[in-house]
C-alpha cells in the first residue's frame, strides 16, 4: 500500500475514524489532484465526520457551509456591507469627486466574506465542507461551478478573486435529489456505504472503550439486520453509537426485549419503523449476518 495512504489510515484511526483503502485513496487524490471530493451515501454513515477528521488530521480550519433551500450568493459567497457603505457616503458626501467615492465603497474593505470566499482567502489551505448539497437549489449548484473547477470567485464590482491557497473541498449529498452532471464532472466521487459488521464493531469499540465485546457485537448484528428490513429510515453509524451509549448507560450486558422496547427511540426515528420493531422479538434481529 502507498505510504501516504497508510499514514492517512493510521492518523484517521487515531482521530477515531476508521478509513477503508478506497476512501483513503479518494482523500489522497483530493490532496494530490486538488479536485473537490463528492461524497454520497445514506444519512449517518460518517460523511460530515470525515471532513471534520480531515481538518483535524491536517491541523487546519474547517469551514462548513450547511446547505438548505433558498441558499444564495449573499449567504454563501459575499455581501456588501451596506451600513458601512452608507456611513462612508454620508461622511464624504461633500467631497467633489463622486467617482472616487464610488470606487472607494466598492473595495474589499466593504465586502462581508461568507464561507466560500473565506475559504479561498485563507493563507493556509482550509477544509471546506459543503454539507448536504442536495438540499440547496440548482441555481446554487451553478454558483459553485466556478469555485469547484478554478478555485476562484467572480464579484461583478471587483473582478475575479483567485484562491490564495486552494481549499480541500468536500461536498456531501444524501441523494434526496439528483445533482447536475456539471457539478459531478468537477468532482472526484465516492459512495460511502454502511460499514461491514467487523468495521462497525471496531468503530463502536473505538468510540466507547468501556463497551463489552459481546454487547457491541449484538448491537451491530441487530442494526445490520434492521437495515435489511424495509424501513423508512435505516439506522446509520451515528444511531448505532447512540444506541450503544444508551445501553451502556443502562448497564446492559445483553440486548433484551424490554431494553429494545424502552430504547429503540435512539435508533429509529419514524413511528412506523418503531412499531415494526416493537411487534417483533429481539431474537428475530439477532440472527447471524452472512
Amino acid at each position, binding site marked *: *500500500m*502507498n505510504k501516504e*495512504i497508510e499514514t492517512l489510515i493510521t492518523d484517521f484511526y487515531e482521530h477515531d475514524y476508521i478509513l477503508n*483503502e*478506497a476512501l483513503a*485513496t*479518494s482523500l489522497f*487524490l483530493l490532496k*494530490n*489532484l486538488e*479536485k473537490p*471530493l463528492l461524497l*454520497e451515501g445514506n444519512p449517518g454513515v460518517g460523511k460530515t465526520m470525515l471532513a471534520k477528521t480531515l481538518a483535524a488530521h491536517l491541523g487546519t480550519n474547517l469551514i462548513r457551509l450547511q446547505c438548505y433551500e433558498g441558499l444564495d450568493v449573499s449567504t454563501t459567497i459575499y*455581501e456588501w456591507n*451596506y*451600513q458601512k457603505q*452608507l456611513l462612508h457616503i454620508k461622511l464624504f458626501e461633500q467631497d467633489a469627486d463622486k467617482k472616487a467615492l464610488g470606487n472607494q465603497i466598492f473595495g474589499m474593505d466593504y465586502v462581508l466574506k461568507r464561507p466560500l470566499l473565506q475559504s479561498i482567502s485563507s493563507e493556509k489551505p482550509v477544509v471546506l465542507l459543503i454539507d448536504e448539497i442536495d438540499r440547496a437549489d*440548482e441555481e446554487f449548484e451553478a454558483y459553485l461551478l466556478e469555485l469547484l473547477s478554478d478555485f476562484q470567485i467572480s464579484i461583478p464590482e471587483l473582478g475575479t478573486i483567485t484562491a490564495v491557497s486552494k481549499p480541500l473541498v468536500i461536498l456531501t449529498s444524501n*441523494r434526496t*435529489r*439528483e445533482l447536475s*452532471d456539471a457539478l*459531478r*464532472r468537477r468532482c*472526484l*466521487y*465516492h*459512495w460511502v456505504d454502511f460499514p461491514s459488521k467487523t468495521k462497525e464493531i471496531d468503530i463502536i469499540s473505538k468510540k466507547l472503550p468501556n463497551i463489552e465485546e459481546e454487547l457491541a457485537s449484538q448491537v451491530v448484528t441487530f442494526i445490520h439486520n434492521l437495515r435489511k428490513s*424495509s424501513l*423508512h429510515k435505516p439506522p446509520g453509524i451515528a444511531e448505532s453509537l447512540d444506541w450503544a451509549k444508551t445501553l451502556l448507560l443502562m448497564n446492559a450486558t445483553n440486548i433484551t426485549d424490554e431494553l429494545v422496547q424502552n430504547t429503540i427511540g435512539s435508533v429509529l426515528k419514524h413511528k412506523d419503523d418503531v412499531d415494526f420493531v416493537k411487534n417483533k422479538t429481539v431474537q428475530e434481529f439477532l440472527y447471524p449476518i452472512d
Partner: protein
Amino acid sequence: MKEVITTFKERLIDFTMYCRERQFVLGPPETRDAFEIAERGYFLDRKLFQYSLKAVYCKRKEHFDRFDELFDRFWSRYYEDKLEQRKAAIKHKKKEPDTATIIFLGAKFNVSKPLQKEQEAKKTVGANESIRLRMTDFSKVNVTDKERLEELAEELFYQMSMRFKRRLENANRGQIAIRNTIRQSISKGGMLLDLSYKRKRKEKRKVVFILDVSGSMDTYSYYLLRYVMVLKKYFKSLEFFTFSTTLTHVTPLLRSNNEQQILQEVGKNVHSWSSGTKIGESLTEFLSSYGSKFLSQKHIVVILSDGLETGSVTQLKEAVRTIRRKCKTLVWLNPLKGMQGYQPIQKGMVNVMPHLDAFESAHNLDSLLKLEKLLMDV
C-alpha cells in the same frame, strides 16, 4: 519508462472507451486526470490505481457499484473465464423459472424458443449496438443482450429523469414577493435594492399506473416498472397497481429508493405474476376499492396490457368507460402495437378503443422514452 507510460496511456484510453460504451459519462477532463494518475506512477500499485480511477471515473452510485467489476474485466486476464461463469450462471437460472424474481426478469420467455427469439432480436439492425437494443422488443432480447439492455435502460432513464427535472424547474419569475423584498431590504438600511420574486413552478402530475403482469406481459411490466421508478419523484402522487386475475396495490413497496430492493419486493409480493388475464374484473375492483381515492380530474391513468381479455368484455368496456369519465387522461399501452401489421381487433381492445385518449406501444426502450412527452404534456 517513458515508452512504458506511452503504451500504458494507450491502454488507458482503451479503458476509458470501454467504460464510455458502458454509459460512464467520461470526457477529456477525466482522461487527463487518468493520465496524471499514470504519470505519478500510481499504476504500479494495482489497488491504488483501481481506487484512483474509480474516484475519477465514477460520477454516480450506479457507476460506483459497477466499476470494480469493469476494472477487473478489462485489466484482468481472467475476463474470459468470468464471462463463461456468468453465462453458466444465467443458464442455471433459466432452468429454474419458478421463482418470482426470474419470472419478473422475463427470463421465462427465453426458455421456450431461445433460438428463434435470438434471431428475431438480431433482425433489428441499426447504426450501432445501442440503437439496435433501443428498438428491440423487450420480449425478444436474448440472454447475452439482456445485461447490455439493462445498462442502456438505466442510462436512458436517468437522462430522461434529468429532462423531467429541467422542465419542472422555474423558468419564469412570478410576481414580486413583497414580504421577502422588505425582509431583504432590512440589511441594506431599508433601501429596496433587490427585488424578490415569487416562484412559478409547473404543477406536478398525479398518475395511476395499472400494469398487467400476466404471462404474456411480465417482461414489458418489468421495464415499465423500472421506468416509473425513475420518474416517481416528478409526480405529485403516483399510484401503482398490478393485475392478472386479481388486483394488487404495490405503491407501498415503492417507498425505498433502492431500485433492486423494490424489484425484489414487488416480485415477492405480487402473487398473481404470470397467470391468466381478467382485465375487466381487475379494473372493476380498482374502481370499487380505490376509485374514489385515486381518480379525479387531475389524474392521468396509464394501463399497460395486451388487451387479451379472458373474462367478460362488457365488464371491461364498462370499467374503462367509468375510469375515462373520472380521470383527466386515459392512456393504454399495448406492446402488441409494436408488431408489424397489428390491428386492435381483439374483442377486448375493440371495446376499449373509443374511450382512450392515447394508445401507444411501450414494447421497446424507444417507445417507453416517447411516453415522456405524453406524461409531461397532457
